[in-house]
């Protein structure tokens, strides 16, 4: 497809899924009601539903999708491997373990788990710890096998930590439910608090990434050649790893583990519009937001415990297997 159509196409899909996110749910609203609720409509119920519940949920979904899409692109360029993504490498699990630790240990040690910043902060710390381990296990330009196997090991390790916290808090139903929420990811009952917790920082990180696209093109084809062509590789690598980890961590802090977005979205967009990162980065942000909002709509259509992380995995898992089988 011509890159020219990408932006209008993606923007149209984003507006569509965003409006659908405001309209669909237990209470089905018409397009007119949604617009009315957003402007100065008189329908009190619609106003409350849209403004207090669906709008923050949709905004969080949009930001989380954009963050995970961008993070996936960055990790793929960084590791020079189109199969790298925050979920597969264990960065999401690290973020989740951080968040879960706050949830689980907060009540025990009496620090304020409910504080607005404790959760995202712990998530960022956990994600950075995981990223650090990935960097140690799989050195630069790591082969697919080494990278994915490190991810398997790291995911298992961090998952064990999370499971441990889950069992130690088995008596506290409330805490346990919250932890489970994080592990399966979701946008249910996301409030304006979550919007403020994640959205502004995600926006800033995304904006900081955009100018790095050209240098990422060069990095994605080799570190030394990029350096020789005039890219400050050390600085670029630092910027990329910090921004992508922060994005994954923030996404995980507000919506739990939502896998495969960072893998599926950049891949589809790369196939459609080519690997140029100056375009792929913004496209993946838009595409990630669309994908996440669409998956969230699916969870609302089948309300019987179908969680967001489950939906993205149902789509992403087979896609990943297809990628592995596909001849390069």
């Amino acid at each position: 497809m011509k890159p020219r159509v990408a932006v209008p196409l993606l923007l149209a899909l984003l507006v569509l899924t965003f409006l659908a996110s405001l309209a669909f749910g237990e209470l089905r609203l018409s397009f007119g009601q949604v617009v009315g609720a957003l402007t100065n409509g008189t329908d009190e119920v619609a106003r409350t539903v849209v403004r207090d519940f669906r709008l923050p949920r949709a905004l969080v979904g949009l930001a989380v999708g954009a963050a995970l899409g961008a993070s996936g692109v960055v990790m793929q360029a960084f590791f020079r491997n189109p199969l790298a993504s925050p979920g597969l490498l264990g960065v999401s699990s690290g973020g989740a373990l951080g968040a879960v630790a706050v949830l689980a240990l907060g009540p025990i040690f009496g620090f304020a788990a409910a504080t607005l910043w404790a959760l995202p902060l712990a998530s960022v710390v956990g994600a950075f710890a995981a990223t650090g381990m990935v960097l140690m296990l799989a050195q630069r330009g790591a082969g697919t096998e080494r990278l994915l196997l490190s991810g398997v090991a790291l995911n298992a390790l961090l998952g064990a930590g999370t499971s441990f916290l889950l069992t130690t808090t088995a008596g506290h139903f409330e805490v346990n439910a919250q932890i489970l929420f994080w592990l399966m990811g979701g946008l249910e009952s996301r409030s304006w608090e979550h919007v403020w917790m994640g959205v502004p920082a995600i926006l800033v990180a995304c904006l900081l990434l955009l100018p790095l696209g050209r240098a990422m093109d060069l990095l994605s084809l080799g570190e030394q050649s990029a350096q020789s062509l005039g890219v400050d590789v050390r600085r670029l690598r630092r910027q990329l790893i910090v921004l992508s980890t922060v994005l994954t961590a923030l996404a995980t802090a507000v919506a739990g583990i939502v896998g495969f977005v960072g893998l599926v979205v950049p891949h589809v967009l790369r196939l459609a519009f080519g690997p140029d990162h100056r375009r792929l980065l913004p496209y993946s942000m838009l595409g990630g937001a669309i994908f996440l909002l669409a998956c969230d709509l699916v969870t609302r259509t089948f309300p019987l415990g179908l969680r967001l992380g489950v939906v993205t995995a149902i789509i992403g898992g087979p896609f990943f297997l297809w990628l592995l089988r596909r001849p390069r």
Partner: protein
Amino acid sequence: MTAALHASALAVPGRLQPIALDLGPGELVAMVGPNGAGKSTLIQALAGLLPAHGLVHWNGQPLSRIAIAERGRQLAWVGQEAQFEFAFPVREVVAQGRYAWGDDLTGVPEALAELDLTHLADRPVTRLSGGERHRVGLARALATGAPIQLWDEPVAQLDVRHALEVMRLARRLSNNGSTVVVSLHDLRAAYRFDRVLVLDQGRLVGNGKPHDVLTAPLIREVFRVEATFVESLVPELP
């Protein structure tokens, strides 16, 4: 005249003994040596791509004082590996050579033509053969317009004709004032260069004009083969 490429006490622990070197502008330099002799290491150290001890100067300027973007305009390096993971079209990979120039496209079509890639310009690099990918790497280096060109085994994977064309290109660049360093395994090809550097076990054991350096005793010592000078089949471009 200032050396285009100057090194003193240049060393990489465990891989390269301290080396002193002065290469002039317009010199066409062959680097030979057995596998593991340190050819790639020396090339990368000269290109500033490897942490190394000692001093390197490009055109009289110490490397540490040359900003990274400026380095991209002064020196081009082509590595042995030409592994491209992402399906950029050939043209765009070659255009990356213009990164340090703010991505103008000066010389990109010429570089494509020079390496016989014009007909492949729109093909994804992932769908090229090994030899074709090497030519893409060379075209990208050429597109930089850098006056110092360091090519690590550029012809190892090329067919006879393209290998000869690359050699001729190297000669032409040096005739136009560029300093071109090419590592290779073909001692007969090395004989046609202005200067030959011989590396053995991380040491520079030969540095001078080909017929002074590539003598039968040195070849026996370094490569452990017997060399005799006879007439033989020599492929040439028409």
